[in-house]
Each structure stands twice: as structure tokens, then as C-alpha cells.
């Protein structure tokens, strides 16, 4: 029972913190990029390319956290026995 509660807590915290952090990271990156483009419109192409790579990497981190949360909730080997013990299926 404690394990199940711990897993649910961990999964919720994992995705919550990851989405929060990634949102802040993307916002900061975009904010800097927008400021750069408005100051120097000719550099828009360069900024855009670098930002694309950076944002793709940040998004990947969040997706990894999501998968880890899903694994904790649905495919962890100890989840099925714990749910069965609680009378679920």
C-alpha cells in the first residue's frame, strides 16, 4: 500500500516538476530570442535555428519525465500485486 502511494506521489511530482521547469526554460529562451530579434532583425534566422535545437532538447526532457511517470503508474513490476491486494484488477 505504501509503495503504491509512493509511486503515485512520485509520478505526479515527476511530471509536475518537469513540466514546470521546462515551461520556465522555454519561456526564458523565447524571451531572450524575441528580445534579440527585435533588437537585430537581421539575426532572426540564426536565432531561430539555435532556438529550435534548444527547445527540442528541453521538450525531450519533459517527455522523458512523462514516460518515467507512466512507467511508475502502469508498468512497474510491483504495481500489479499492490493493486490486486487492494481489490482492484
Amino acid at each position, binding site marked *: 500500500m505504501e509503495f503504491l502511494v509512493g509511486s503515485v506521489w512520485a509520478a505526479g511530482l515527476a511530471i509536475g516538476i518537469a*513540466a514546470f521547469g521546462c*515551461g520556465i526554460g*522555454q*519561456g526564458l529562451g*523565447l*524571451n531572450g*530570442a*524575441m528580445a534579440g*530579434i*527585435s533588437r537585430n*532583425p537581421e539575426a*532572426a*534566422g*540564426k*536565432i*531561430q*535555428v*539555435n*532556438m*529550435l*535545437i534548444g*527547445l*527540442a*532538447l528541453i*521538450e*525531450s526532457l*519533459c*517527455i*522523458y519525465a*512523462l*514516460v518515467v511517470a*507512466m*512507467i511508475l*503508474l*502502469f*508498468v512497474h513490476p510491483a504495481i500489479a500485486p499492490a493493486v490486486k491486494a487492494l481489490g482492484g484488477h
Partner: protein
Amino acid sequence: MQDLQKIVDFITRSNWLILLLGGMIGLVMTPMKFALGIILGGLIVAVNFHLLKGTLKKMCHPDTVSEKGRSIVGNVLVKYYIRFAISGFLIFLLISKHIVHPVGLLAGLSVVVASVFLATALELKKIFFKEAV
């Protein structure tokens, strides 16, 4: 600028190549669920990358920036959360219904990261090679 554009083109192409290669290796050498995880995970992130590219191309145009200002940040973030929610739902279905092996899915989701690392390694190689000459 052209060099940078080349890097993005390389990453876009290598995404599909790595997905194809990983999928084929998975199909030959690993169980079906694992291979399916690599293929579906790779597809999710490759399509995500394309959508992100489209959004940024549209939003980072100097005319759009001067016209819309800081609201672009919110706009891009909203699109990010929508994409993330859809990817999340797909990953939820894949894992909760036990359609794919989670480790295979993680490998598939790493396609874009692998492409970026590959591009970085090739650029570093170019720099070191130039310095040596």
C-alpha cells in the same frame, strides 16, 4: 547562417534516418513490442520536431516579432503545451494498454536527442579537424 540552416536540415533528415535504422534493427533483433516502442516513440518526437519547426518559423519572422511583441512567447508556450498534451495522451495510451515496451519507447523518444548529439559531434569533428590542419 547557411551553416546553421544546414545543421537543422541535417537534424531533420537524420531524425527520419535514425528512426528508420532503429526501427529496422528493433524489428530484426528485439521483440515486437520493443520494436514498436522504438518506431512509435520516434514518430511522436519526429512529428513534434516538425511542428515546433513550423511554429518557430512562423513566429520568429522579424515582421511578426515587431507586430506581436512579447505575446509571441505566450503563443509558442500554449502551442508547446497543446503538443505536449497530445504526445502525453498518445504515450499514456501506448504504456497503459501495454502496446509497447517502455524501454523501447524511451529509445524511440530519444531520436531527436540522438540527432542533435550526432550533429554536435560532426561539428566538433569539423572544428578539431580544421584546427589540426
